[in-house]
């Protein structure tokens, strides 16, 4: 336990160690720590920002979806309306066509009937003429006339 030169040796050693530590050890470690702290802070801020953006875009997405739904239902309603309209139009057209055809058919029938009647009239006229010829040929007999006329009447 003698005090001797070791004292000074220890002081010098101590000074050298402190110098080395101050020069080569402390600054890089503290810088790295500071850099990491900054990096972590930046990362957290970025995460926050990302979260915020996510929320925002989710909101936007739901809005878009909502709009799309509304639009789709509008389109469907429009389409339904259009379909109903088309059906009505088709019905209308069909009805018109049917009526026209019916009218045409009736006209034809009437024409046919008219023609038949004309024919009939001609035939009647011919018959009348033939009957008259017969009557004129046998002389006129009241009783015979009556029978003849009756027969013509029946024929008409």
């Amino acid at each position: 336990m003698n005090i001797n030169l070791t004292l000074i040796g220890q002081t010098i050693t101590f000074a050298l160690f402190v110098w080395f530590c101050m020069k080569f050890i402390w600054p890089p470690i503290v810088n790295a720590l500071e850099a990491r702290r900054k990096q972590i802070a930046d990362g957290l801020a970025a995460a926050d920002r990302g979260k915020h953006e996510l929320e925002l875009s989710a909101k936007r997405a739901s809005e878009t979806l909502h709009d799309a739904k509304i639009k789709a239902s509008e389109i469907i309603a429009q389409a339904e309306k259009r379909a109903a309209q088309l059906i009505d139009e088709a019905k209308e057209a069909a009805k018109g066509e049917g009526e026209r055809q019916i009218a045409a058919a009736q006209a034809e029938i009437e024409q046919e009937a008219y023609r038949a009647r004309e024919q009939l009239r001609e035939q009647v006229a011919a018959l009348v003429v033939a009957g008259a010829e017969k009557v004129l040929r046998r002389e006129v007999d009241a009783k015979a006339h009556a029978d003849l006329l009756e027969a013509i009447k029946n024929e008409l």
Partner: protein
Amino acid sequence: MAGEAHTSAEYIKHHLQNLAYGQLPDGTWGIAHSAAEAKAMGFWAIHLDTLGISIVLGVLFLYFFRKAATQATAGVPGGLQNFVEWVVEFIDSSVRGSFSGRNPLVAPLALTIFIWIFLLNLMDLVPIDWIPGLATLLGVPFFKLVPTTDPNATFGMAIGVFILVLYYSFKMKGVGGFAAELTLQPFGKWGMPANLLLEGVNLIAKPISLALRLFGNLYAGEMIFILIALMFSGGAVLFLTGGVLQWAWAVFHVLIITLQAFIFMTLTIVYLDMAHQEHH
């Protein structure tokens, strides 16, 4: 384990003797082979064990911390880097808490003091007969493993701190300011001699208390380890008691060595803080 040839007193003395290198009584330079020879060397001698262990441990500390420092990036830290960063942050927060000025020297100084003294103290936990026994086998007469049980080591560090305290006192306050601090308070200028006496004692007490506190704690701890080791040669009961006591004392000592390193560091920071302040 007091060897057959030793008495208890010799055993204790042997453990408390440093390995001194200096001028022997016959005029040549060499290693002292007895306590008397070591004493006769006077001031111009060196304790090889104290300085050697101090330097080896200091270099180990610097090597590992330097390794971590060169690898230090902002990325994910590895094991060593993590540990080093944890220590550095702990020291940094201590310095921020106690030191109000701005000085790039203080934090590295505190780190060096804390780790170095901790490592020196840690040698106290090596079973006390291992290294001296090994030294004896190698023909080295003495080997005191724990540098902080040598007052030269603790006073050496305390003087280093004291020089810094004086340097910053002069630098921050100027010669006049520092002189005024020493002479004009607490009693004003008419109580100058009393002021000088009080403040002088206050100033001198700083390095002495730093050195003696560390030395005293470690020396006493080492002494108790030696006394416990003496029990090992006293029969089965004493052997077992000694074993239990040694274990208990070693566990307690884990606290002591850390605490002493921390106290030395904190007081250094506080003293330097006082040196930086204009008034206190």
